[in-house]
């Protein structure tokens, strides 16, 4: 019996290892292609025979045809993505935490109605606001701007929901003690609520990072100029360059766009898993 169980365990273990290798194949392909010189792109071997960094070099310095250099604005895509992700994280955490604090710890008229309106719209897809939002930002002459990329992503009812659940568990006694010491409502928020809600804020930060960094539809609608492209738009549009072999540099760009996300998720695994399972079991 014991022996049979051990054999079974080994069987399952090796099956899983084999399937995970197969599962990773698209990632292996991505990295392998990004290291191939142009001559090997169409070869049938998976791994590069003469690995080279030329595809990465092109992202920085452009494609060279004799004297002609065709620039790829990849560094700009990267810069744009970092800026909008950073700014939108700061804004979303601040506005969501403030609102969540009010919903969790204050009694005010209209509280429940407002909360349910928020939850109700949270269930609607982005398509319900896409056309009016596009029209609004074009009226405001904000097409091709950071404002247009950032602002819609800052409105995040889900984050308020998540933070409110957490802040409700912070005991009122701690807040009352601060009141007795003369702390006003904003001070209580900033000096007590925010530090105590760090785990929930961390979870929300990871979620928002992933969303903004990887978003595609909204940038596609609101950005027309190549200098304002985000990483996702940039990678999607590399296909359009006629006459060039872009498959290699496209994979190099894909790899560089994916790397920070993977590192972040590995570092923040705990916050991330907590958020995920909280969605399934605590909501």
């Amino acid at each position, binding site marked *: 019996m014991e022996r049979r169980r051990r054999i079974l365990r080994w069987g399952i273990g090796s099956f899983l290892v084999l399937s995970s290798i197969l599962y990773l194949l698209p990632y292996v392909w991505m990295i392998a292609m990004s290291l191939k010189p142009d001559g090997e792109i169409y070869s049938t071997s998976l791994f590069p025979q003469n690995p080279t960094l030329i595809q990465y070099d092109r992202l920085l310095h452009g494609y060279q045809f004799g004297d002609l250099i065709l620039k790829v604005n990849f560094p700009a895509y990267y810069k744009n993505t970092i800026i909008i992700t950073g700014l939108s994280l700061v804004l979303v955490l601040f*506005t969501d935490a403030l609102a969540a604090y*009010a919903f969790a710890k204050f009694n005010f008229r209209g509280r429940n109605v407002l909360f349910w309106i928020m939850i109700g719209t949270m269930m609607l897809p982005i398509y319900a*606001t896409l*056309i009016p939002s596009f029209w609004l930002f074009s009226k405001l002459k904000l097409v091709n701007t950071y404002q247009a990329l950032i602002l819609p992503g800052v409105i995040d*009812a889900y984050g308020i929901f998540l933070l409110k659940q957490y802040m409700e568990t912070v005991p009122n006694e701690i807040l009352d003690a601060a009141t007795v010491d003369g702390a006003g409502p904003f001070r209580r928020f900033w000096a007590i609520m925010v530090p105590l809600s760090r785990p929930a804020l961390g979870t929300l930060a990871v979620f928002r990072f992933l969303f903004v960094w990887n978003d*595609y539809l909204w940038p596609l609608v609101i950005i027309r100029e190549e200098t304002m492209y985000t990483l996702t738009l940039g990678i*999607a549009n590399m296909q359009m360059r006629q006459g060039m072999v872009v498959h290699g540099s496209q994979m190099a760009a894909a790899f560089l766009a994916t790397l920070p*996300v993977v590192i972040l998720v590995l570092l923040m695994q705990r916050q991330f898993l907590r958020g995920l399972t909280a969605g399934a079991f605590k909501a």
Partner: protein
Amino acid sequence: MAAGKTRSSTSDNPRKFTSWKRIWKAATPYIFISPFFVGFVALQLLPIAFSAFLSFAEWSGMNQIQLVGIENFVTMVNDPRFWNALRVTFTITVVCTALGTACSLALAILIEQATYWLSSLLRVIFFLPSVTSVVVITYVWKQLYNADFGFINTVITQFGLPAQQWLANPRLALPSLIIMLIWAGLGWDALIITAGLRSIPDELYDAAKVDGASGWAEFRHVTLPLLRPTLTFVLVTSVIYLWGLFAQPQLLTGGGPMRGTQTIALYLYDVGFRYHKFGYASAIAIILSIIMFISSYANFRVVRTDVEY
């Protein structure tokens, strides 16, 4: 409270001070929610209302908005492209949800059997696509499916099978898209199912063993019933996600060949941003929203009913 009273009684103009303080106190929560709510009204509520209004109008974004009653919805009912998009999205949703959930369940159960370090490693590996941009995922798969140099054709020709036009053949494009979607969603669902598996008390399995239950009976009578809330959650979130599917078909096949992979969201985008029929696009958005709202609401209800053993 007591502190406030003593302080105001020592102030020069006690009455005025308290009333200001009262107003300030009453306003505090509204001030706290205002940064969010200003944006929420401008970028969510008003756009939603405007969408609903536009769905009864004709508008190209340039000309005057013309109210046309329910004409957009009549057009929709008679629009074969809309029905095609609905059918495509429905097929993707049903097949991906059913196959994807079954595979994730199997994966989650197998990973739980592995040793601790192996299962932690596997969870990270299978989770990678969930954090990778869909643009990256789709372009990698587009190359894997490529008829000339793609890895899939390389492998199958080595086994003596004919190379296929995975994305250009109308009969293969939809299955190719579905396979990619299942691959990408596997780790996320498996992770949630794992959390569900872990919340099942060990005593129940011990009791089943005492009763002499086989592995299958244990799965059938302990695991599956107790996993029902988790599985429902996974099913419903997956259904909501797939109804709104856009980027993957747009980048992989452009909705083709012959509209064979054109989802509702893709059709909506074409109608709105390529043909500039904002009224009709809004009507499609409203219908899609209703479909997704109902699915979300079902999800919310299911999640809210707490799991009891």
